[in-house]
Structure formats: C-alpha cells, structure tokens
C-alpha cells in the first residue's frame, strides 16, 4: 500500500503498481496460463474454457402472456460447473436479471449492455422475425462478452443463469460483497477532490465517442431514407422501359435488357438497405448503450474515491484533536479505491481492444455489402444485356 504522506497531501491516489493488480487478479483467476500482452492483460483466446451461444428463438403462448425464449448452450471445462455441457431456455427478463445481479456484485467492473428492454407496442412488432433476430444477436453478444471477461465469468450468478433448470430469481444468491454494499451506502455528503487525469481522459473520450456514434447513426438513417426514395423512382423507371419495348420491333430486346438491369438494381438495393437496418444500426446503437454503462462505472469510481477522501479527512482532523489513530475502515476504503481503479483500467484496455475489433468488423462489413451490391448490379449488364444487344 501507499505512503501516508501522499494521502495527507490530499493528492489523488496514484495508479496502483502492477504488483497489486496481478495479485488481485491471481486471487480470482484460477487459470495459470496468462498471456502477458500489455494491450489485453486478461488473457488470450487459446486458454478460453467457457463457450456460450444464444440461438433458436421460440414463441410461448400462455393465458397470461406471450413471450419469446432463446436456447442458451454452454460448453466448459471449468470445475465451477458440475457438467461439461448445459442447454437451458431463457427469456429477456432472465438476461436482465443477470445483468442487474452482475452490476450489484461487481460494481467496479464494466458490465456489457443489453438491447433495449421496452419497445413501443404500436411501433415495433415484438414478434416479427427481424426484431427477434436482431435482439437474439445482441443477447448472444452480451453473454459472450460476460463469458470472456476474466472476472465476470466466474460470477456465481452467471453460473446459475447458464446451468439452473429453473432460474429462481427471487432467491438472490447471498454474494453481495462488502464492496458492493459500501458503494450503495455512500451518502451525498462526500465530494471528490479531483478526478485523476487518466479517468478524466476516459470521460472525455466517452463523451466525444458517443457523440460521433450518434452522428453516424443519423447519417445511416438518412442514407436509408434516400435509398428508399431512390428505389421507388427506380421501379417506375424500369416499367417504362418495358412498356416502350412493347411498341417497338428492332428496339424491343435492348429495351427489355435495360428494364431487366433496372430490376436487378432494385433487388440489390433492397438487400443493401435491409442489411443496414438489421446488422449495422443495431450494433452501433448497442455501443452507445455500452458507452453509457462505462460512464456509470466511472461515476461509481468517483463516488468511492469521494467516500474515501471524506472519511480520511474526518479521521485526520480527529487525530489532530485527540490523537485517535486512523481507523481501519479508512484503510479499507483506500484499498477499495485502488481496487476499483485497477479493475477499471484493465477493463478499459480490454474494452478499447474489443471496440477496435468490433468496429473494424462493422465497417469492413459495410464496405463489403456495398461492393457486393455493385458487383450484383454489374453482372447482368455485362453478361445478359450486351449479348442481347448483339
């Protein structure tokens, strides 16, 4: 732990030394195979021993309600699990339960976001194929992120979620750590001195990034709108060539050729737009939610720092008055803050790395779809029409 002098100055807690991070890590992680990659301090994929999948949506109709369940499949070699394989059915509510439990029990960690909970009944069809498909992909991503996380994946609530036949949500597993409790009980009286610069930078980054993603979302929606209007005009355009072909002799085949190409263009455009709204936009929006989660974690960190500083200040004053020694709670608070900072930083690096991969994939996917569109449109023009012309 750090020196006392550093604390009485009121200077913010320094970044924890690598030693304390790894010791913290070792306490929780049973897997000895650690990859020392600085960018991804928590490991590499070769040592993964927990695999989860969400698929197979099914509709359930009861007298009370209608809802969708998804199949959650697990394969694992971890000893925390009784069996090597599990297959259970879960609904959205269950995922939400898991998320809340994780947030409560691991307040210093970034919990991945879930897709939107409430959908306006009149506007969106909750049982349409597209909606269910999109939601399922987001749930799958959520669960995979949790399963890949070195700390969260060992959470007992996750274990229950993946393995229990019936998820008894009312019976909360008694695992609320002291850390969790004290964070909850922080009163409004504590005010943080200053957010350390590295966390400031994180906050600023998140704000700007969130803004840019919002802009990209708007641009994508605008493109969808323009494409839809283009499609409408294009359809009429194609029919005009067909009807002209009907009143011509020599020109009939070339005109029909052009009509055919326009039709291909229309189909290609439909596919492009569908991909944009089914695959591109949902991922974008999910990241905006992710950013909000990260901001929350930053705020919680601030709160715990504030609490520590407040208690310390009070204790120091008391010591000056009647030589009462600094109580144990204050040291425990300090530990807590250090813990929080270390977890957050590690999660941040991990998040940045994942973000890079996710966006690389998302944007190259968008480029690919556009390339496919042009290739699809070009083919019949080259093959079919030019031979018709000859």
């Amino acid at each position, binding site marked *: 732990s750090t020196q006392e002098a550093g604390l009485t100055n009121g200077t913010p807690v320094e970044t924890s030394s690598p030693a304390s991070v790894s010791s913290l890590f070792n306490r929780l992680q049973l897997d000895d195979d650690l990859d020392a990659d600085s960018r991804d301090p928590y490991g590499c994929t070769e040592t993964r021993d927990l695999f989860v999948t969400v698929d197979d949506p099914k509709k359930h109709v009861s007298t009370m309600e209608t809802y969708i369940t998804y199949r959650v499949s697990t394969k694992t070699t971890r000893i925390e699990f009784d069996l090597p394989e599990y297959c259970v059915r879960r609904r959205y509510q269950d995922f939400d339960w898991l998320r809340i439990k994780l947030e409560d029990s691991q307040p210093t960690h970034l919990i991945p976001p879930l897709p939107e909970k409430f959908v306006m009944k009149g506007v969106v069809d909750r049982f349409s194929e597209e909606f269910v498909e999109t939601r399922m992909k987001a749930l799958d991503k959520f669960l995979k992120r949790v399963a890949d996380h070195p700390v969260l994946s060992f959470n007992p609530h996750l274990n229950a979620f993946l393995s229990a036949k019936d998820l008894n949500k009312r019976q909360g597993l008694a695992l609320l750590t002291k850390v969790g409790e004290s964070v909850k009980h922080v009163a409004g009286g504590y005010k943080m001195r200053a957010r350390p610069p590295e966390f400031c930078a994180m906050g600023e980054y998140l704000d700007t990034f969130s803004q840019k993603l919002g802009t*990209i979302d708007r641009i994508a929606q605008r493109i969808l709108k323009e494409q839809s209007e283009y499609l409408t005009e294009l359809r009429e355009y194609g029919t005009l060539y067909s009807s002209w072909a009907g*009143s011509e002799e020599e020109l009939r085949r070339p*005109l029909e050729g052009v009509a055919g190409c326009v039709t291909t263009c229309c189909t290609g455009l439909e596919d492009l737009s569908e991909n944009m709204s089914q695959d591109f936009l949902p991922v974008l929006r999910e990241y905006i939610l992710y950013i909000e989660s990260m901001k929350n974690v930053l705020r919680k960190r601030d709160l715990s720092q504030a609490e520590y500083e407040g208690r310390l200040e009070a204790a120091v004053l008391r010591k000056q008055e009647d030589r009462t020694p600094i109580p144990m709670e204050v040291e425990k608070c300090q530990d807590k803050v250090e813990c929080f900072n270390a977890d957050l930083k590690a999660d941040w690096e991990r998040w940045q790395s994942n973000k890079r991969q996710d966006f690389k994939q998302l944007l190259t996917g968008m480029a690919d779809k556009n390339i496919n569109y042009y290739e699809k449109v070009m083919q019949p*023009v080259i093959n079919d029409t030019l031979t018709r012309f000859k």
Partner: protein
Amino acid sequence: MLMTLMKAESSHYSYSVRNSKLILGKNSEFLVLQCFSNFLMKPCLCGIKMVEEGCTLLRRMEICVAEAEKRSGKNAVNMQETFTVYLIETRPMDALNEGRNPAPDSLWRRYSEFELLRNYLIVTYPYIVVPPLPEKRAEFVWHKLSADNMDPDFVERRRVGLENFLLRVASHPVLSNDKILYHFLTEVLAIIFPCFCLFSIRRFMEMKHYSDELQSHTSQLLRARARVADRLYGVYKVHGNYGRVFSEWSAIEKEMGDGLQSAGHHMDAYAASIDDILEEEEHYADQLKEYLFYAEALRAVCRKHELTQFELEMASQDLISKKQQREELATGIVRTFSFKGMTNKLFGQEAPEQREARLKLLEELIAEGEDTVKEKTVECEEHVERAWVDMQRFKEQKDKDLREALINYAVMQISMCKKGIQVWGNAKECFLKM
C-alpha cells in the same frame, strides 16, 4: 434583328407559321429575314431547285458550330436583351482532300434564326421528317442542372445540338440540296422564306399513332430519369457526411485514427463521383430528347397531311356545289335553298342577260375548280409516296441511333459500378488497417 413583311400575289391557300413573331394573315406572304451582324439589305429571291438525290451537302463541305458568345442588343420592340450567338464554320471538302488547310468561312447566328430555317424546311418539304432542334428552354432538369438558358453547360450542350442539327440536315438526301440551307450556312444576306401549300393524307393514321407512342414513351422516360437522377444524387452526397465524422472521430483515436481518416477521404471521393456520372448521363438524355422532338416533327407531318386532305375535300365540295348551282340556273329547278332563290321568288326572276353572265362566270369557276382538284389529288398522291419513303428512312435511323444510345447507357452503368467497387474497396482497405 429587323424583319419586313411584303405582300405578294395572293393565292388560294394560306399558311401560318407557328411559334414565331411573324403571325401572317390570310394570304400567303413572303418573309424577309435579316442577319444581325451585318445590316445588309440585299433581297434575293431564291428558287428551290432539287438536285439529284444522293449527293448530299456534307460530302462537299465540312460544317461545324465552333463557338458560342454572349451579345446584347435591342429587340423588335426596342427593348434591351441578352442572347447567345453561335459561330457556324464551313470549309470546302475538295480543298481538305487535296491536303490544303484553308481558313474556314464563318458567320454568327442565334437560335431563333435556326428556328426560322427549320420552319422554312418544314413548310417547303412537308413530306420529309425534318430533324429537330435542341430544346428551346431547359426542360427535364433534375435539381442540380440550371434551368437558365445562359448557363454555360446549357449553352455548350446547345452548341453541340445545333451542330448535330446542321449535320443531320446537310446529310439528308433531299434537304441537303436546298439553296436556302446553303445560304444559311455561308452567306450574310437577307433570306426570303416563301410559304407553300400543305398536303395531308389518311394513310398516315398509322404514322400518327406511332409518333404519338414515341412521343409519350420518350417524354415519360425522360421525366422518370430526371427523378431517378435526383434521388441517386441524394444517396451519394449523404455519404459525404461519413467523411467528416470519420475525420472528427479519428482525432480521438490512437491506433484506429489513420485508418478512419483515410477511409473518410474515400467517402468524400465517393460523394463527389456522382457529379461526373450524372453529367455523362445527360448525353444519354439528350439523345432521347432528340427523338422526343423528332416524334413531334413526325406528328407535324401527319397534321399537315390531314389539313391538306381536308382542303382537298373542301375544294371538292365547293366544285360540287358550283355544279349544282349551274344545273339549277340552266334548268330553273331549285334543289337547294339559297338566298338568291328566295329573292328571285320575292322580287321576280332576273333578266336573261344577267342569267347568261352568271352562267358564264360559273362555267369559268367550275373549270378552274376541276383543274385545282385534279392538281391537288396528284400532289397528294405524290407526297404520300415521298413521305412514306422518308418515314422508312427515319425508322431505320431511329433504330440505329437509339440502339447505340442504349448500349452507351449500359456501358455508363458498368462504369459507375466499377467506380463504386473501387472506392468501397479502398475504404475497406483503410478499415482493415484500423
């Protein structure tokens, strides 16, 4: 530009020139056109002589519309106006074939003078499908193109269209031999456009139907194409916004920054590429427009034939009624009601000398009428033949031209796709490097 109208010997038939400032009266009149750049008054009556077909003007001289310039001046109602004039250059083919490179003869003409030339050709050769002029005002615009006649792009496309018109006329087996055309191209003098009679024929119902179809299809297609172009423009341009936001985003990224920034530039390039693509498509639209106007020319030929047929029928009716009058006068039996007949009954019959005089006049008129009807019938039949021939020629030309236009259009689409693939491929490379 000054114009004078001179009345000449009246003939039985009348004609009115549409869409010009020269509204004529009932009798045929001569129009005198004076060129703007040279206030010469050299009236010259040019006859129309048909040289043997197949020897077109274009073989004897090279023609082009080289330049366009803005001019200002006072118009016919003494108001200041700005307009564009076009330089017509001609060079003799035999000089070029011998390897010499003489300076071209040139003169400036404005659009309305081309219109007058075309109207004259329409009137003089009513059985010919006369090539159309480029549009008078910019129509079928999609929002980017200016609808302004002084816009440099519009002027340039009009210059090309006018040259195209002259080349088509000069290569037509019949029109190219016209003396007025030759003077239009080469000499600065006053040209007189005499007006002639019109003819009609019923056989052209089919032709009329075809021209209606052609007109309807091309105009609908042109309108739809303009709407499609407008929408496509929107799609491409919105992508330009990606360029800006990727650039801003790259500023807060470390490893991803370069890739994002470069990708942004490619998005800008994508958005910019639509301008050239659509500009090229305008050429395709121009080719369709030419045939839209050609359809109008076809309809004009049909209308004129209908009108002439109507006149022939009127002449025939007139002849019939005159013959009936003669019969009544000769036999005294009144078959039809007439005012003269009534007054005769009221005021008593006329003197025999008067009757003789009237009969004699009638006989003269009937003889004239019979000649006229005979003439008109022969002319009608001749013109049917000639018009039919020209229509077949027109159809062949149209099929060839539009086929080529459609192929070019297909090639343009392929080119557009290739550009799209290239730009998105480049962007993808940048994304992979993020």
